[in-house]
C-alpha cells in the first residue's frame, strides 16, 4: 500500500475536495455543450438516452451504498478508508450529474433503493472489502463501455466516457492496493 503514503490522508482528502469541483464541472461542461443537441433530438431518442442514463444511475446509487457498507464495516483502516470515502464521493457526483441530465431529457430519475443486497457474509477483512470494491469498479467500467455506443446524442457518449475514465482509475488504484497488477491489459472490455 506504499502509494497511499505519498500524501497523508488529510492531504489527499483536501486535494480531492479542491479538485472534485473541477472534475464535476468538466463532465458538466460536456453535457452543457450538448444542451442544444439534446433539445433537437426526437422524443424517441431522448427517451432511449434517458433509459440508458437511468440504468447507469441505478448502478451508481448502488455503488454509493456499497462504499457506505464498506465504510461502516469497521474493516477498513485509514488510509484505505479515506480512499473508499473519496471514491464514494465520485460516485455521488456521477449520480447527481446523471439525475440532472435525465430530468433535462424529460425522464424520471431512478431513486436509491431502500435496501441493497451485498455479499456481506463474504467480507471478513479489509482485503475482502477492497477486492469487492475492485470488482464493482471493474464492472462499472464495462457497463459504461457498453453504454457509450448506444446514445443517440454524442455528447452523452462523451459524458459516459468521462465517467468511465474515473471508474477505471478507481479500479486501477484498488488493484494496486490489493497487490494485483493495477493495469492488467492495454484495453478494457
Amino acid at each position, binding site marked *: 500500500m506504499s502509494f497511499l503514503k505519498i500524501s497523508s490522508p488529510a492531504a489527499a482528502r483536501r486535494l480531492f475536495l479542491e479538485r472534485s469541483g473541477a472534475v464535476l464541472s468538466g463532465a458538466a461542461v460536456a453535457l452543457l455543450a450538448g444542451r442544444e443537441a439534446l433539445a433537437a433530438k426526437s422524443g424517441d431518442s431522448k427517451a432511449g438516452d434517458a*433509459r440508458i442514463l437511468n440504468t447507469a444511475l441505478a448502478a451508481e446509487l448502488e455503488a454509493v451504498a456499497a462504499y457506505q457498507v464498506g465504510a461502516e464495516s469497521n474493516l477498513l483502516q485509514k488510509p484505505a478508508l479515506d480512499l473508499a470515502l473519496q471514491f464514494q464521493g465520485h460516485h455521488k457526483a456521477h449520480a447527481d450529474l446523471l439525475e440532472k441530465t435525465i430530468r433535462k431529457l424529460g425522464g424520471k430519475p431512478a431513486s436509491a433503493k431502500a435496501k441493497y*443486497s451485498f455479499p456481506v457474509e463474504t467480507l471478513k477483512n479489509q482485503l475482502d472489502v477492497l477486492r469487492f470494491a475492485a*470488482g464493482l469498479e*471493474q*464492472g462499472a467500467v464495462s*457497463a459504461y463501455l*457498453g*453504454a*457509450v455506443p448506444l446514445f443517440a446524442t454524442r455528447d452523452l457518449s462523451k459524458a459516459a466516457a468521462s465517467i468511465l475514465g474515473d471508474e477505471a482509475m478507481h479500479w486501477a488504484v484498488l488493484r494496486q492496493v490489493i497487490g494485483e497488477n493495477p493495469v492488467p491489459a492495454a484495453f478494457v472490455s
Partner: protein
Amino acid sequence: MIEAVALAAALAAGDPLRGKEIYARCLACHALAYDRVGPRHCGLLGRRAGSVPGFAYSSAMKKSGIVWSKKTLDRFLADPTHTVPGTAMTYAGVADAQERADLIAFLAAADQSKDCSARH
C-alpha cells in the same frame, strides 16, 4: 462445482472458466444469487424472460416472450437493445461469439454450483 463445470463444458462449446472472467463485465449490474440493477442469474436457463418475482423489469422484457436457452441467450447477449427493444439492460453486448459461448457455459455451470443451490 468442478463436476458441474465439466458437465457444462461438455454440453456447450464454451469454456466456463473463461466465461467466469467475462462475467466480470456483468458485475456492475448482476450477481448470481441476488437481484441488483439487473435480476439474479441463478435459475436463468429454462426460465421465462422477465419472471424473477419481485424484480422490476421493463415491460419490454416482460412481454418479450423469450424463454432463456443457450440459443436465446446467445442472441440477446450479442445485442441486447436490438433483440429486446426498450429493455432496461442498456448495454451494447458481447460481440464475440466465442466469448458469448464461454459466458453462457459459465452461467449454465453456475446454476448447478453451490453459489446458486444455496438460494433456490
